[in-house]
C-alpha cells in the first residue's frame, strides 16, 4: 500500500536509494508504535532519526532488521522489494544493526560473539582462523581494536558496542543501523565512533543513526527524519535545518528550553554524602569516593553519561543498595543499616528512574500503587489494609495530579507512560518529604507531563525541601538545578552553578576537564 503521509524524497543527486520504507505500520496491542511510515535513505549517506522516547524509532529499525514484523507496508532494498521475515533475511540483504540494548552473549568471548550466526561451517575450527583474520583486517581498516579473546562481561560498555559494530561489519553489512549508540559513550568515545562512521560512509556504506541528541544529528548526518508518536513528521537535509526547528518538530510545538523559577534559598544541609563507595553485584566499583551535600531549598543536579554510577548512587541513598564504604547522613543522622522503609519514615522520598520495574507494580490497580512503600503507615490499617482510606487518598492524588483516566481501580499497565510517571510523582511528593531524590523524572514522558512534573519539583524546592536530581538529559539538569555535579566513572569530577554552559559540562562528562 502507498502512504498518504507526505513522502519526502531528497535530492542526494546521483545517489540511488539504499532503503525505501513504504507505509510501514506496527501495533503492539493498544500501542500504535509505527503509523504509516514512509522513508527513503540514499546509498552512501548517513541518515539520522530523532524523536522522543517512545516515538517508535527502535521499533521501525527493528522492523527493518527483521526483529519485528510490520503489520503492513513494504521494504525495498536498492529498489527491489524484499520481505524481511527474520534477522537472517536482513543480514542476507546486507543490513546490520547495533541494538540499543546490546545483543551480546555476556559469557562468550568477543570472537565467539562475532562468529555467532556466521560460523562458516558446521565445525567451529573451520571458521575460527578466518574470523581472526577478518577481525584483524577490520581493526586495521577502521581502528576498531578489541582483544578477540576477551570475555564480553569483562569489557567496558564502549568496547562492547565496538563488538556489536564488528559483528555487523563481519557479516558484510552494507547498511548499518545504530540505535542510540552514544547513550552509553563519553563524548570522546562518541567522537571516535563518528569518525568510524564517516569512514564507512566514504566507502559507500549506508548508515542510519538513531538518537535524540540534536547535537549529534547536526555533527554527522547528511539527512534527518523526525519521529513523533509513531509517525515521521518531517525529513530534512541536515545542512538546511537548525537545532531549533528539529526540536520543535520533535515535540510538536515550540519548546521552552527553560523552566520559570526563582532564586534558590538554601538552608541547612538535609542530605549529606560522605566518601561514598558503592559496588555492583559483580564487585565492580560503580560509585567511587563521592561526597556532596544537598541543602534545604535547593535542587542539586547530577549530570553524566548513563552508566557512570548515578543509578547506584541513587539506590545507595535510597537504602536499596548497601554502600561498600562511606556514609550518608539524613538530616545529620547516619542512615547506615536503614532500609528504604525506615528512610521513608525519616522523610526521604525517592522517584526511581525505572518506573516499570521499581516505581510501580504494573499488574496492580492504581490505588495499590499509590501506597507502595508507604503501605505500613498506620492510617492504611494495622495488619489489615484499610481499603476505604487507601482508595480515598488515591482518588485525591488522581484529582490533584490530573492522572488520566481518573480510575483508581484501573490496572497500572493500562495507563500511558506519562500518567504512570505522574502516579509515582504524586505518591512520593504527597507524603511531603524533607528530602526528595529523583532519577530520570521525565524519561518517556510527553512534553505536557514534563512541564507538570518540573513545576512540582520546583514547588518542592520552594517549600524548603532538599532535592537531588539525576538525569542524563543535560537540558533538564540545566533548567532545574541550582547546582550541578558531574559524574564520570563513579566519581564526581566537577561542580557548576545552575548557569553552567553546556560545553564545560560536556567536557566534564567526558572526564576531560575539571
Amino acid at each position, binding site marked *: 500500500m502507498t502512504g498518504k503521509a507526505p513522502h519526502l524524497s531528497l535530492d542526494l543527486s546521483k545517489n540511488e536509494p539504499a532503503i525505501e520504507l513504504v507505509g510501514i505500520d506496527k501495533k503492539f496491542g493498544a500501542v500504535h508504535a509505527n503509523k504509516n511510515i514512509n522513508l527513503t535513505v540514499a546509498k552512501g549517506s548517513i541518515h539520522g532519526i530523532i524523536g522522543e522516547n517512545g516515538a517508535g524509532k527502535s521499533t521501525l529499525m527493528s522492523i527493518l532488521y527483521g526483529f519485528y514484523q510490520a503489520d503492513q507496508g513494504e521494504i525495498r532494498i536498492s529498489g527491489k522489494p524484499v520481505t524481511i521475515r527474520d534477522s537472517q533475511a536482513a543480514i542476507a540483504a546486507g543490513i546490520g544493526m547495533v541494538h540499543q540494548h546490546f545483543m551480546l552473549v555476556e559469557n562468550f568471548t568477543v570472537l565467539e560473539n562475532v562468529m*555467532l550466526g556466521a560460523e562458516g561451517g558446521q565445525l567451529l575450527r573451520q571458521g575460527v582462523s578466518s574470523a581472526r583474520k577478518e577481525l584483524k583486517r577490520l581493526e586495521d581498516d577502521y581502528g576498531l581494536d578489541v582483544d578477540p579473546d576477551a570475555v564480553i562481561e569483562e569489557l567496558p560498555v564502549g568496547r562492547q558496542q565496538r563488538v556489536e559494530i564488528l559483528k555487523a561489519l563481519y557479516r558484510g553489512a552494507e547498511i548499518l543501523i545504530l540505535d542510540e549508540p552514544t547513550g552509553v559513550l563519553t563524548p570522546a568515545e562518541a567522537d571516535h565512533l563518528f569518525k568510524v562512521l564517516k569512514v564507512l560512509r566514504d566507502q559507500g556504506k549506508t548508515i542510519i543513526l538513531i538518537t535524540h541528541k540534536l547535537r549529534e544529528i547536526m555533527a554527522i548526518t547528511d539527512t534527518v527524519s523526525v519521529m513523533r508518536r509513531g509517525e515521521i513528521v518531517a525529513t530534512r537535509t541536515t545542512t538546511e535545518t537548525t537545532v531549533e526547528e528539529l526540536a520543535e518538530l520533535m515535540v510538536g510545538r515550540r519548546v521552552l528550553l527553560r523552566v520559570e523559577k526563582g532564586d534558590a534559598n538554601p538552608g541547612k544541609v538535609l542530605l549529606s554524602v560522605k566518601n561514598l563507595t558503592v559496588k555492583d553485584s559483580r564487585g565492580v566499583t560503580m560509585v567511587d569516593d563521592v561526597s556532596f551535600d544537598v541543602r534545604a531549598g535547593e535542587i542539586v543536579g547530577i549530570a553524566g553519561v548513563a552508566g557512570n554510577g548515578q543509578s547506584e548512587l541513587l539506590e545507595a541513598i535510597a537504602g536499596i543498595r548497601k554502600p561498600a564504604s562511606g556514609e550518608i547522613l539524613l538530616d545529620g543522622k547516619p542512615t547506615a543499616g536503614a532500609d528504604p522503609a525506615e528512610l521513608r519514615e525519616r522523610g526521604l522520598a525517592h522517584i526511581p528512574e525505572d518506573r516499570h520495574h521499581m516505581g510501580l507494580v504494573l499488574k496492580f490497580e492504581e490505588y495499590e500503587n499509590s501506597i507502595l512503600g508507604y503501605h505500613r503507615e498506620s492510617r492504611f490499617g494495622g495488619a489489615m489494609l484499610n481499603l476505604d482510606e487507601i482508595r480515598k487518598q488515591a482518588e485525591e492524588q488522581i484529582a490533584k495530579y490530573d492522572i488520566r483516566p481518573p480510575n483508581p481501580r484501573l490496572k497500572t499497565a493500562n495507563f500511558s507512560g506519562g500518567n504512570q510517571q505522574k502516579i509515582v510523582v504524586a505518591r512520593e511528593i504527597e507524603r511531603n518529604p524533607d528530602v526528595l531524590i529523583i532519577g530520570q523524572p521525565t524519561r518517556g514522558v510527553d512534553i505536557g507531563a514534563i512541564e507538570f512534573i518540573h513545576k512540582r519539583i520546583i514547588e518542592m524546592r520552594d517549600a524548603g525541601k532538599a532535592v537531588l536530581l539525576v538525569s542524563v538529559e543535560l537540558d533538564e539538569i540545566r533548567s532545574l538545578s541550582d547546582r550541578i555535579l558531574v559524574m564520570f566513572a563513579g566519581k564526581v569530577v566537577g561542580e557548576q552553578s545552575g548557569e553552567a554552559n553546556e560545553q564545560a559540562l560536556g567536557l566534564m562528562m567526558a572526564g576531560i576537564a575539571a
Partner: protein
Amino acid sequence: MDYFDIFISILGSAIRLSIPLLFTALAGLFSERAGIFDIGLEGKILASAFASACAAYWTGNAWAGLATGIATSIVFSLVHGFASITNRGNQIVSGVALNFVAAGLTIVLGAAWFGQGGRTGQVPASGRFSGITLPGAEMMRDVPIIGPLYANVISGNNILTYIAFLMVPISWWILYRTRFGLRVRAVGENPGAVDTAGISVAWLRYRALIVAGFLCGFAGTYLSIAQSAAFINNMSAGKGYIALAALIFAKWKPVPVMLACLLFGFLDAFANFMQGKALPGIGEVPVQIFQALPYILTCVLLAGFIGVARPPKAGGAPYTKER
C-alpha cells in the same frame, strides 16, 4: 573378602547405577544450556523405558527397543517444546505435567496391553542388551589391582554403558566445538543475540530438546531392557530429579556431569552395600540416611558451599520479543 574386592564390587555397581543418571543428566545439559528447564526428564525416562520394553518384548530385538524408546522420548520433548517454546508456557509446569502423563500413561497402557498391572511382559534375552566381555578379561582377572578392575568393572557391561561414557566427550565436543553447540550455549544465555544473528531461536531450542529426548531414550532403554528385563511401574524412581541435581552440581558442564553422576551412583551402590551392615564404632546406619544422601548433598551444594552454580541466564523464561 578384602576391602579391595568390596571396593571393586561397589565400583561396578556404582557404574551400573549411574548410567541412567548419566544419559539423563546429559540430556538435561542440552536442554538447560539452550535455556529450557526440563523437570520433565523423569517422565521422559519413564516413557522411553516403557516404550522400549514394549518394542523389545514384541520384536525380540533390543535395538528396535532402543529406537522406540528414543522416538517416544523425543515425542515427549516435542510436546515440552510445543508448550514452552511455541506457546511460551511455563517450563516447569509443562515438565511437571509431562511427568504426570508419563507416570499414568505407562501404567494405563501397560495394564491394558499386558494385563500385569502395568508391568510389561518379560523381555526375552534377544530383546535385551546383555553384558559384553571385553577381550582378555578372563586372562587379566588374576593380575593384581588392574586385573579385577578390568575384568569386573570395565569389562562385562552392556553396550549402552559404553555408549553412555562415549556420550560425555561427544557432548563436550558438540557443545564446544561445533556450530550447533555454540548456538545452543548462546541461546541459553541471550536468545536475543541469537535471534539478531539471524538464527531461529525456536528451531534451535527445539533441536536442543530433540537431542535431550534422544539421550533420555537411552536412559529409559537402559533401565528396562539392559538393567532389567521388563518395564516396572515408576521404574525411573526419581532418577530424573537426581540427574537435575547432578547437572547443578556439575555447573552445566559435560565432564563434571559424568563425575557427579558417578558420585550419585556410588552413593546408591554404597547404600545397597551398607544395608544391614554395621559401621565400626557407629553401629548400623539406617539405610534411609544413605537413600536421602544425594538429596541432602544437593541442598548443601545449592546453598553455595562449593561455589555458586550459575545457571544459563535465559533459562526458564520463554523468549518473547513483543511484550
